């Protein structure tokens, strides 16, 4: 547990935050939840639409098995109960991009029940955040409001794509925790391959429930800030909404339960245009769909074939590779980073591999603005570089030089070593000759050294290395100098 509770200092004293998240995650599948239309991002408008998706008369939904499997996998990844019996309900409301006039969702009986994830905070502490439920539902289409002066355009490509709505318990107490929770969810789903977590393309969106209270109090009224599409904005929106609520309470007002939007430009939340009526979704079981009944053996099969999850992988790195917790966390943060690291580390010193990945590689990614999925140096080449260090071909210093050349040219280390003649000199005769030459040229310094000015040793090393164009094996050069200087 973190030591101190996060508070915001108001005019009248400190306030705590209570935060819960509802996350909408687009399921990775080829076809939509209830139709055979494609889900690919960025298609021409209204090309990935079936008559089912467009809500044509007499069209009926038939569920996609893979979407169900993805929800179960995600549930398992969230350490949650899998409900073998669940049901789909209709959520009725009118909107231009909701073709059926209702969304098929799971209201009373979701496919996944209670679970929990552990988040890690910057100070190294961890917290458990409860998962209330996960359910499957249809996404809506897209309304474009800026294409025409008097009309809104509707594209139904997204209509009917499977979403997972993941609801957390109101367990978070700071913007940082909410950010960490969302990052953790995204990480788990990426590991599972159930959601690509791409917030820019809208495949992961969050609604945030925020309330404030005096330390020790029960819950006060909460507000929902809808449809936030980045982790940074989630954290900013929470902070802004909490401050707004504190101001309302401190001025003697009442926070009203409502839905708000986060204005990213101004960093403030604002009330959604007041509805003429309260929402009344008139949920009822969808009569087109019998219950969703899962075969326990199938769920077991999904559990057995689940990939290694970030927490497990981190533990393994610490256990098997002896990596410190921090390094392990950094390496498992992205599935692709972990995969890169493991390829570099395979059959090599894992600590050396971790240092190179987290140090030189990350720096190179930053500098070249590339990602781990498209790195300037492949894991295989970095592994080969490490081998050249281990077998003494390259010194640490030379290796860094070779690595920089690899980043620039994209060529494998052996080729660079050959081309540039960077191979380290370990031939004792050549080193001895270089040492003798240097000592002879600096007889005066040798005399000073022998008279007790021992710090001149470094000077001799430098001169020998310079004479050998930096390629002398440092250990051998040292040994030879020590011997000659007596």
């Amino acid at each position, binding site marked *: 547990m973190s030591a101190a509770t996060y508070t915001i200092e108001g005019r009248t004293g400190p306030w705590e935050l209570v935060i819960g998240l509802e996350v909408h995650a687009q399921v990775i599948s080829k076809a939509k939840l209830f139709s055979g239309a494609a889900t690919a991002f960025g298609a021409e408008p209204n090309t990935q639409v079936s*008559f089912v998706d*467009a*809500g*044509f*008369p*007499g*069209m*009926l*939904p*038939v*569920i996609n098995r893979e979407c169900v499997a993805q929800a179960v996998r995600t549930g398992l990844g969230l350490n949650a109960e899998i409900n073998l019996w669940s049901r789909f309900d*209709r959520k*009725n409301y*009118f909107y*231009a991009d909701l*073709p*059926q*006039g*209702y969304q098929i969702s799971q209201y009373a009986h979701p496919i996944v029940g209670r679970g929990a994830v552990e988040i890690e905070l910057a100070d190294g502490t961890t917290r458990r955040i409860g998962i209330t439920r996960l359910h499957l539902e249809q996404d809506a289409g897209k309304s474009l409001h800026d294409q025409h002066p008097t009309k*809104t355009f*509707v594209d139904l490509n997204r209509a009917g794509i499977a979403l997972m709505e993941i609801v957390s318990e109101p367990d978070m107490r700071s913007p940082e925790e909410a950010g960490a929770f969302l990052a953790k969810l995204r990480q788990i789903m990426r590991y599972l391959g159930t959601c690509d977590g791409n917030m820019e393309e809208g495949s992961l969106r969050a609604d945030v429930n925020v309330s404030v209270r005096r330390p020790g109090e029960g819950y006060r009224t909460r507000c929902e800030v809808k449809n936030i599409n980045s982790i940074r904005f989630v954290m900013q929106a929470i902070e802004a909404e909490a401050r707004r609520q504190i101001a309302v309470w401190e001025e003697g007002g009442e926070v009203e339960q409502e839905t708000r939007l986060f204005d990213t430009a101004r960093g403030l939340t604002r009330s959604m245009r007041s509805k003429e009526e309260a929402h*009344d979704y*008139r*949920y*009822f079981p*969808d*009569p*087109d*769909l*019998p219950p969703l009944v899962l075969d326990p053996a199938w769920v077991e099969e999904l559990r057995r074939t689940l990939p290694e999850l970030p927490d497990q992988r981190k533990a393994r790195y610490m256990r098997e590779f002896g990596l410190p917790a921090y390094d392990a966390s950094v390496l498992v943060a992205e599935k692709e980073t972990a995969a890169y690291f493991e390829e570099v580390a395979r059959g090599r010193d894992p600590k050396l591999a971790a240092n190179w990945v987290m140090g030189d590689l990350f720096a190179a990614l930053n500098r070249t603005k590339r990602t781990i999925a498209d790195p300037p140096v492949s894991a295989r080449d970095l592994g080969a570089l490490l081998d050249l260090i281990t077998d003494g071909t390259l010194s640490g210093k030379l290796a860094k030089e070779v690595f920089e050349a690899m980043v620039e040219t994209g060529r494998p280390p052996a080729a660079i070593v050959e081309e540039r003649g960077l191979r380290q000199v370990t031939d004792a005769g050549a080193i001895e000759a270089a040492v003798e030459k240097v000592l002879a040229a600096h007889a005066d310094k040798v005399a000073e050294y022998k008279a007790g000015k021992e710090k001149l040793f470094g000077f001799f090393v430098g001169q020998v290395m310079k004479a050998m164009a930096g390629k002398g094996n440092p250990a051998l050069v040292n040994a030879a100098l020590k011997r000659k200087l007596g």
Partner: protein
Amino acid sequence: MRPTDLTIAGALEALGRRALSAEELTRAHLEAIEALNPRLNALITVTAEQALAQARESDARRTRGEARPLDGIPLAIKDLFCTAGVRTTAASRILHNFVPPYESTVTAQLRRDGAVFLGKANLDEFAMGSSNLTSAFGPVENPWSRRNDPETRLVPGGSSGGSAAAVAARMALGATGTDTGGSIRQPAAFCGIVGIKPTYGRCSRYGIVAFASSLDQAGPFARTVEDCAILLRSMSGHDPKDSTSAEVPVPDFAAACRRGVRGLRIGVPKEYRLDGMPAEIEALWRQGLEWLRAEGAEPVEISLPHTQYALPTYYIVAPAEASSNLARYDGVRYGLRVAAPDSDLRDMYERTRAAGFGQEVKRRIMIGTYVLSAGYYEAYYLKAQKVRALIARDFERAWERVDAILTPATPSAAFAMGERTDDPVTMYLNDVFTVTANLAGLPGLAVPAGLDAEGLPLGLQVIGRPFDEETVFAVGAALERAADFKALPRVRAGA
């Protein structure tokens, strides 16, 4: 015999021995339609050219020796079944111009088996009604009329009123219908023909404009029990496009018509003896039991104690589902749109739906919206689902003692167009005997069994176990043989 007076079985036989061509048969029916439809208004859309083309293809197949089970049989299709390239209206202004680019599974299967489609039959708007008076394309007239009052125009029943009237008037050899609370059986009874609502899940609902998804079932109309059996076989079967479609084999229903009823126990539910039920209906019911007893069946009095709650249950469940199913008619993607120059989206919705839906449809959408709304869901909708479970359980218990159940099909014969229209609830009582089979998902068949004092047909209903249409056909055929119903409607082809 006129081609229009043939049964489907008889027509298939005549086509088979080349005594008649499909084109001749279709032409005869198109002529009947041309002559009678202006008066009866049974069809909203007539697809004469398409029908003739289909008939010629049928003749060609037969010549090649590739005849299919229904090859060349001209049918009317209730205008609730989507037919690719042919306007499908649901008898609503809101779909007045809708041309579906896809075909319902049931009609696709009928086409697969060689049937010829004459046109799209009139109905109550969105299948909501028992009179065909709610159609946006005008009422259908029942081809029957009262013996002593031939001028008073009667309703054909509903919602599949156009289908029933077309078959009774010899404008088609058979027709498709849908039945949500009695919409096949009540018009069949009113028009003196046979109609069956099969078990829920027997026919795919894919491509049928939805009214109430948990109650809607497609089924056939024809003038004999055997003809219905022949049509149902083509219409039935598992469809992966409908998640509620049952994966059960499709038997030879026509063969079951010849089984006889010896040894069958026939349930007589005492709760169906209504106060104020016309004596002639009561008498016909008793007569039906006697006929079956004479054929070796055993009448058994049973109790279906929750029967009296079936209609109120239905009038919660069906409108609730309808209010949601009809939300898609919003003027955005197809159908009618009505907007003022300054309409926003919401105003466009409200104007479109106000202009596009008729009074009965609006009433039911309002009721359905209300019973699902916050604070009322449990008192109405959930309660109705529980009573529905009790009604289904009543039948489950009855099946321990009987093999089929016999009831009157309707509480009266066809009524006049002006009658019973003021009070919706009075109109709803038409379905009192039929609605239980929808709530419990059971097959029910209406068969004409006699005439009332005014010379109007009266029907009996046979209800069967789930997926046991065969016994229903066996009992229906036995009643048909015994009743030997020969009366003809005044308005019919060749009359």
